[in-house]
């Protein structure tokens, strides 16, 4: 919760902070692909001189068979298990990934790359367009989850990794995991889609549209060219984040945490200041988010999620996406997640069953909503550890 006045933090800053510097010069290894290795996109367009920023943890074994690719969520990045260079906070999946953690970096070689369209060093709207020497802005072609995964496959080719021992991720990360399993079954030994689904629902698209409209309604957005004016649509992006943040939590968790409690006051002010703790909390979430994320990236990455529909890509039948797949999957959902409810995970499980794939499915009881996949959930850790250990035995790693 915010100690500083949240309204102050939402005020527009004259110079875009950290993220925009990270876009071209990230604090992590990068691969730059030549013009001859353009990333072909679902839209029919392509990105030349693709840059991918990534992080690795642990050691690749001599057989190159112990690599796990982590796919990050909407506002995540490649800094899974090490200090984030922008926020100074621990990596976003620090609880899951590391020495002795469920995704054990003493055993596995963990790779995570920033998604295409992101703002932490992989080519995105804030990156410099080599053709103009200015930030792409909206000149960057719209990307899809398939495009993100195609770029990751290029990174793995570059790293000399033919087959992944596993690919894991939550939310948008889980979509990428499913896309990996569908598009490259022979390159994926096991897969862990968490709090995810094979498509974005109408309600999910609706929430994203609210967020995008908030960004674009901010005059400082300037048609997506705000970089050139040294500004950014901070207010719009903060509102987008506030709305989205509600969808990551559950009603009961919000009520448990905040109830109708007032923020630093004994009675309502009969005004529109943040009287309630929940208001103050959301304003703080919005305010801190704009310091680490690029507004145009928010448009691109939410769009990619909206376009995701694995069944539609396979003749309208989800099972077709996994026919003949040898990949072992472990699907995980959370009881209070209403953004990617258990029914969406069950649809994936049904399809995998219908395709005869090897699938486990765990629904974890929690009231923490969609965000549970990022939090300290012992049952999640046990399931991931158990699944990877058995897959590791089958793979001859353990």
């Amino acid at each position, binding site marked *: 919760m915010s100690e500083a006045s949240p309204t102050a933090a939402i005020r527009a800053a004259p110079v875009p902070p950290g993220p925009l510097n990270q876009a071209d010069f990230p604090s992590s290894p990068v691969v730059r692909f030549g013009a001859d290795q353009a990333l072909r996109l679902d839209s029919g367009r392509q990105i030349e001189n693709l840059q991918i920023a990534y992080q690795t943890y642990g050691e690749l074994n001599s057989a190159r068979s112990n690599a796990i690719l982590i796919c990050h969520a909407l506002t995540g990045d490649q800094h899974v298990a090490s200090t984030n260079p922008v926020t100074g906070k621990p990596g976003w999946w620090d609880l899951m990934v590391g020495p002795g953690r469920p995704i054990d970096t003493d055993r596995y070689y963990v790779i995570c790359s920033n998604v295409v369209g992101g703002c932490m060093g992989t080519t995105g709207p804030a990156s410099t367009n080599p053709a103009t020497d200015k930030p792409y802005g909206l000149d960057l072609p719209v990307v899809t989850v398939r495009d993100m995964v195609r770029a990751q496959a290029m990174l793995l080719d570059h790293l000399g990794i033919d087959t992944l021992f596993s690919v894991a991720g939550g939310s948008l990360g889980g979509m990428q995991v499913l896309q990996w399993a569908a598009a490259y079954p022979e390159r994926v030994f096991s897969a862990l889609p968490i709090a995810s689904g094979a498509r974005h629902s109408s309600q999910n698209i609706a929430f994203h549209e609210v967020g995008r409209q908030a960004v674009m309604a901010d005059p400082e957005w300037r048609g997506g060219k705000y970089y050139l004016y040294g500004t950014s649509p901070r207010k719009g992006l903060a509102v987008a984040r506030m709305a989205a943040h509600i969808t990551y939590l559950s009603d009961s968790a919000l009520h448990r945490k905040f109830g109708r409690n007032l923020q630093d006051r004994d009675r309502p002010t009969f005004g529109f200041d943040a009287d309630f703790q929940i208001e103050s909390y959301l304003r703080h979430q919005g305010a801190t988010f704009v310091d680490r994320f690029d507004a145009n990236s928010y448009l691109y990455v939410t769009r990619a999620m909206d376009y995701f529909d694995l069944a539609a890509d396979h003749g309208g039948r989800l099972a077709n996406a996994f026919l003949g797949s040898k990949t072992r999957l472990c699907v995980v959902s959370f009881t209070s997640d209403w953004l990617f409810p258990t029914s969406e995970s069950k649809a994936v499980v*049904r399809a995998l069953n*219908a395709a005869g794939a090897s699938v*486990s499915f765990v629904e974890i009881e929690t009231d923490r909503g969609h965000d549970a996949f990022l939090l300290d959930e012992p049952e999640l850790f046990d399931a991931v550890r158990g699944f990877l250990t058995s897959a590791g035995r089958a793979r001859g790693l353990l």
Partner: protein
Amino acid sequence: MNAPLASFPASTRVDLLAVAELVAPGSRVLDVGCGDGQLLKLLEETRGVDGRGVEIGQKNVNECVARGLSVIQGDADTDLVDYPDDAFDYVILSQTLQATHRPREVLEQLLRIGRKAIVSFPNFGHWRMRRLLLFTGRMPVTRSLPYSWYDTPNIHFCTIRDFVELCREIGARIEKATALRADGSRLAFNAPMWAWNLLGQQAVFLLSR
């Protein structure tokens, strides 16, 4: 993986052994109501099967996944419809039939999903049950079925005779059957039905369409 059958651990439950013996090595198996995965593990280790499980209890599912089994959380009464026809060589319902809401529909689903179905269940016609009911006038509570009537998960008890009748009604063919006494010994296959129904504490049936 494909250890010889002789390697069944000595402590293995006799009813699980009776089920496992009916499964051909290397086959595809779905265990409906797989509990903590004991039978699936046994089948993988001694029969080299490609095994899957469905289990309603989340703690059990998590335990199974942690043991490396492919198990999904699901309900035998509602989730079997999701599986395609002939998806498995065997679909097993081990000590679960009596806990389903609609045993008849579940049994029909087993025979649709699997080429063969293996069903094991406690026999409510066993002489101990009959004696308890006759002399105490109350619902039997025994060591193997320790629940009171009001908190039991077992809502659809049947006798061996009842089960055979249900098989006839849905047109299931009984290929093999075993009845186990309380001490785990088996009744002769050619023993008369009344003897099975009276002396068998549990029964295991191999069915086909």
